[in-house]
């Protein structure tokens, strides 16, 4: 564990543990004059369950987008198992083992639950596009066209592959308790199940790191409690490192072992839930300094 007691301490790169599954090193991102994220550090190991919190507009989702390749960092670097991934496209980063869910659910609405998961499962069987060289690209393109022909000719190997994907996707639906929704279109699922389907889909891409963007948004208390148990279980069963963005303090404090707090793009605190909760800066960010004045410091 790289849980660092000091607030705002960078994740030290020279630990003896194996290379972090996902690491951000001094990542900053600027949109015009707006600094959305400043000197952001993060390190996720297998078995970690980290939280990322902060008031609205603090840069949490921006951090996610940088980690998954949607945005390019203006400074600093993102590393997946010591491979620098700045400049890689989101799908390439996904193939390296980083999967995410979205704050506003982004399922393939017209596809069935099963097909949603199968899309993610499939991508992983494609050649890994971790290199950007022209030669590799050509080989890849040739392979993809060949694959396309296999599908058109319905070759036995293609049929076997389809059955394998189906079995894998069905397994994931079962894990997420969605087996009964197998053939239902994603848009017809109730909200909570859509959230779970999104996680199932993310798992379909066989990640080593799972990034959950407000997984409990819109859920009731009971669903949230179930979700907490589920996230822990997934981490253990799939041997993942998990990073959770969450507004719900109870959820974050309940499951995360280390929490990073962002405000205005800056990391203002990092540490165990109890430490973060009593951190002066955090309280200030969430409740304003007038609260501190009237209550005479950290509660």
């Amino acid at each position, binding site marked *: 564990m790289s849980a660092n007691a000091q607030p705002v301490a960078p994740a030290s790169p020279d630990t003896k543990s194996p290379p972090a599954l996902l690491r951000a090193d001094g990542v900053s991102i600027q949109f015009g004059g707006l600094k959305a994220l400043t000197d952001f550090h993060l390190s996720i190991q297998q078995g970690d369950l980290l939280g990322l919190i902060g008031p609205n507009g603090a840069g949490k989702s921006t951090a996610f987008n940088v980690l*998954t390749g*949607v945005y390019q960092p203006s400074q600093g670097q993102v590393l997946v198992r010591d491979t620098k991934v700045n400049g890689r*496209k*989101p*799908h390439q980063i*996904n*193939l390296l083992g980083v*999967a*995410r869910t*979205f704050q506003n659910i*982004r*399922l*393939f*609405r*017209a*596809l069935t639950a099963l*097909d949603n998961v*199968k*899309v*993610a499962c*499939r*991508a*992983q069987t*494609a050649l890994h*596009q971790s290199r950007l060289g022209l030669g590799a690209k050509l080989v*890849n*393109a040739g392979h*993809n*066209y060949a*694959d*396309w022909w296999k*599908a*058109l*000719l*319905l070759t*036995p190997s*293609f*049929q*076997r*592959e*389809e*059955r*394998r*994907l*189906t*079995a*894998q996707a*069905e*397994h*994931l639906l079962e894990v997420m308790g969605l087996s009964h929704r197998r053939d239902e279109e994603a848009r017809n699922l109730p909200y909570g199940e859509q959230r779970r389907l999104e996680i199932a*889909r*993310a*798992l*379909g*891409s*066989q990640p*080593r790191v799972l990034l959950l963007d407000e997984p409990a948004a819109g859920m009731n208390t009971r669903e949230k409690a179930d979700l907490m148990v589920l996230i822990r279980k997934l981490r253990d*069963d*799939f*041997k993942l490192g998990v990073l959770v963005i969450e507004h719900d303090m109870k959820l974050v404090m309940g499951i995360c072992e280390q929490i990073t707090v962002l405000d205005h793009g800056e990391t203002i605190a990092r540490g165990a839930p109890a430490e973060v909760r009593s951190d002066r800066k955090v309280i200030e960010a969430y409740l304003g300094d007038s609260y501190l004045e009237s209550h005479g410091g950290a509660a």
Partner: protein
Amino acid sequence: MQSPALPVPEAPSLVPPALRGILPLLIAIPTLALFHWSLTGSDFATYLLSVVGVNIILAVSLNIVNGMTGQFSIGHAGFMAVGAYIAGYTSLQLKEVALSFLPVSASDQVLFMLALLVGGVAAALCGFLVGLPSLRLRGDYLAIVTLGFGEIIRVFVQNTDAFGRALGLSGIPQYSSPGMVFFWVFLVVLAARRLAGSSHGRSLWAIREDEVAAEAMGVDTTGYKVRSFVFSSFFAGIAGGLFAHFVPIINPGSFTFVRSMEIVVMVVLGGLGSTTGAVVAAIFLTLLPEGMRSLFGALGTEGSLAQRVDQIRMPIYGLLLVVLMLSRPQGLFGTKEIWDVLPRWLPRKRRGLA
């Protein structure tokens, strides 16, 4: 892979897996041959049938891009033109050639097939060149680029001596037959159907539904979009090639923007994403002008109206679209396919595996 490797279930099918790939062909080719030999109707019926077939190929192939992948291409006639001119030109050049080991008619058909494939590949190549830069971007860029491409091809042909300028290419050997056209109709429908049901098709659907999410799930969106576009252009080229071999003359006027829009209308009318819909709409919209012609003729309204059907056709298409968008915005078939709706004769749907 972290989750335990799951056993791959056996194929629950009556047909051995090795045969499933070619089974439809084994059934279709004799049927089409029968259809071909039994067809002794008038020249006009043959011609109309061929036009219907070509339009089906165009609509089904465009549906792969506009419907399944959710990109908006409005230059399909451009790719058709490439196929028509290249295939026609090839046939003209090979007119005097015959394969000595085959009877003349068979030799002609082989050369015809060759010309078609040359045309199709040329169109696919154009699709690749057009698609690669424009499909990297999200949104409407493809529409603009394909619109431009269609016009460029038309203007290019209009000013190239080898392609007969505005007069067009004439004297292309009339190798085509409804049998051949419908062989390709069959191929494109089969290909579209298999594509839709495969992991490639699912990736295309995913792009249509949510490109950002597809990308985040490891789908190489640019790659898939380009492949679907190339695939679609290939069949447009084939359709053009077929067209060139049954009309007496091809000229730039056959491949205008209006032609492209006609195909788009077919796809939208049938339902974006439904191959069945594309087929039905292509048949309907091709026969509609003929129907109107004979209707107006029979009604005996001013003879001029029957003659002006070609001019009033587009407003009628427009009206049809407006009515459709108001009453059934997803198109006639939505994304449904006839083979999903039909009562299941074969135990095709696998249940309770794993």
